[in-house]
């Protein structure tokens, strides 16, 4: 099943590898930025600490991935140049990651849908032909398993908790579900990365994601929303209005005081 088991194929282009690693790195970075904003404002101290942990893990993944993207690109951009000095249109994160924290149900639904995708993707990437990417994925996997346990655990408690928590979680699912189209629809780059043995087979990710998420929704007594075609994909640089605001805040210091170290 893993790409590594396949025979060696034509190498991917530098541009493809760069774009692909950016998709992964940016998705983790933007998700970490959202969760970081919640620290100190969670529903209970234990949840505050858990969300802080997850933010730290995601930020750690983002740093490794962006540093790798910079090396692949070979133009001297490091993790900070990539994080702080690109505008929204150059970001390649999944649009789901940039959606606001909302109430705790929205935070959990967003995390859960992304965590399932990340877990399956990294599981597969651990066997990637790109050794550096495979090493990062392997390290991230342990974290991703914990993230999924946390978010799916809360999805179940909220879905099967009180009438209010159930209603809020349904509303969050309804609001965010359209962004799962992007997680599961492979574009030409995803397909090329799979063919050259770097990225996972898109059909495999879709199937495993569906199984994982459906089981969690069933346990949470939540209806799966109807599929909606949503072709505006962050991974191709087409974002929602939220990303610009997020970046304006995140990038403020390096933009206001260019060229200094911090």
């Amino acid at each position: 099943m893993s790409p590594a088991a396949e025979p060696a194929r034509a190498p991917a282009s530098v541009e493809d590898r760069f774009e692909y690693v950016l998709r992964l790195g940016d998705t983790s970075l933007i998700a970490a930025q959202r969760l970081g904003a919640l620290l100190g404002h969670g529903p209970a101290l234990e949840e505050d600490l858990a969300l802080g942990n997850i933010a730290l893990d995601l930020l750690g993944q983002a740093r490794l991935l962006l540093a790798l993207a910079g090396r692949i690109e070979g133009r001297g951009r490091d993790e900070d140049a990539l994080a702080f000095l690109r505008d929204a249109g150059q970001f390649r994160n999944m649009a789901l990651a940039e959606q606001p924290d909302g109430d705790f149900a929205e935070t959990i639904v967003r995390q859960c849908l992304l965590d399932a995708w990340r877990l399956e993707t990294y599981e597969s990437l651990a066997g990637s032909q790109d050794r550096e990417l495979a090493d990062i994925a392997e390290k991230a996997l342990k974290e991703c398993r914990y993230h999924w346990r946390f978010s799916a655990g809360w999805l179940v408690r909220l879905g099967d908790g009180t009438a209010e928590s159930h209603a809020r979680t349904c509303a969050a699912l309804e609001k965010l579900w359209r962004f799962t189209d992007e997680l599961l629809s492979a574009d030409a780059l995803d397909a090329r990365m799979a063919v050259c043995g770097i990225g996972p087979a898109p059909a495999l990710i879709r199937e495993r994601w569906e199984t994982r998420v459906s089981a969690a929704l069933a346990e949470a007594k939540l209806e799966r929303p109807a599929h909606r075609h949503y072709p505006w994909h962050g991974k191709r640089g087409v974002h929602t209005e939220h990303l610009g605001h997020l970046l304006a805040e995140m990038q403020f210091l390096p933009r206001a005081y260019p060229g200094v170290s911090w």
Partner: protein
Amino acid sequence: MYTQALDAPQPPSAPTDERERLERFQARIDADEKIEPKDWMPEAYRQTLIRQIAQHAHSEIVGMLPEGNWITRAPSLRRKSVLIAKVQDEGGHGMYLYSAAETLGVARGELVAQLLIGRAKYSSIFNYPTLTWADIGTIGWLVDGAAIMNQIPLCRCSYGPYARAMVRICKEESFHQRQGYEIMLTLAGGSAEQRAMAQDALNRWWWPSLMMFGPSDTDSKHTAQSMRWKIKRFTNDELRQRFIDATVPQAEYLGLMVPDPELRWDETTGHYVHGPIDWSEFHAVLKGDGPCNRERLAARRAAHEAGRWVREAAAAYAEKQAASARDAQAG
């Protein structure tokens, strides 16, 4: 509600066995024995500890807010990561401290409720705003530095659970202090704008940091009894002096000016002499009239209120699980 009247001596009419118990308790303290949760202790000792540990726990939790204010704007990914870890550590400290307080027979929920209705105190320093990135460095350097001065002696506090919690907390705090100083070193060695940012932060945080040690010994309500009980090992003024002596050379190394025109080195005592502290500001901030008192409490209340339905959902789910486990057992 835990303060005042605690320093009152035991009434002379206390029954003999009560007096004997008090003497035995004091003898254990004098022999540097640790008092453990199940041991007998005077009610005033218990209440003093609850008050102090709860204030400390609340300070950690409220302290997450001013620093958390810069997580989304940290200027590099490494700094962001260190700051998230630091704010998370503060939350962890709050958690151990609430647990230490619980060993004295008070529930965390009760202590948090006191904070939310504005009855419990927390360190006045967290009622000051974090206006620039240099404030994050300064808080690590000065505020965590002052906290360490205060807290290292608490590792030898007579109450076992508090002393043990403090050992771990102090290790993490000294790590935070070094991280803060490292931010200051980078800024002080940076551009003119960065140096100005660092100086401005020192100007704003210096005096509030000195106030963190509490009122001068002549005005401190709790010091004498707390020293006898070895809850406190040094007076407020002693600790403040130590902090100043350690910190002034660090400011000099950074090339920053301590904002006290009267500050001078006294050859004969081997200590710095500082100018007068504006205690009216300290008391105003303590009373609720600091720059951010309202915002800090409002943020804690908002998180608590917004989390209510979440906590209810978790409780309802746990109850359903327990009920089905009972049914399965019965069936």
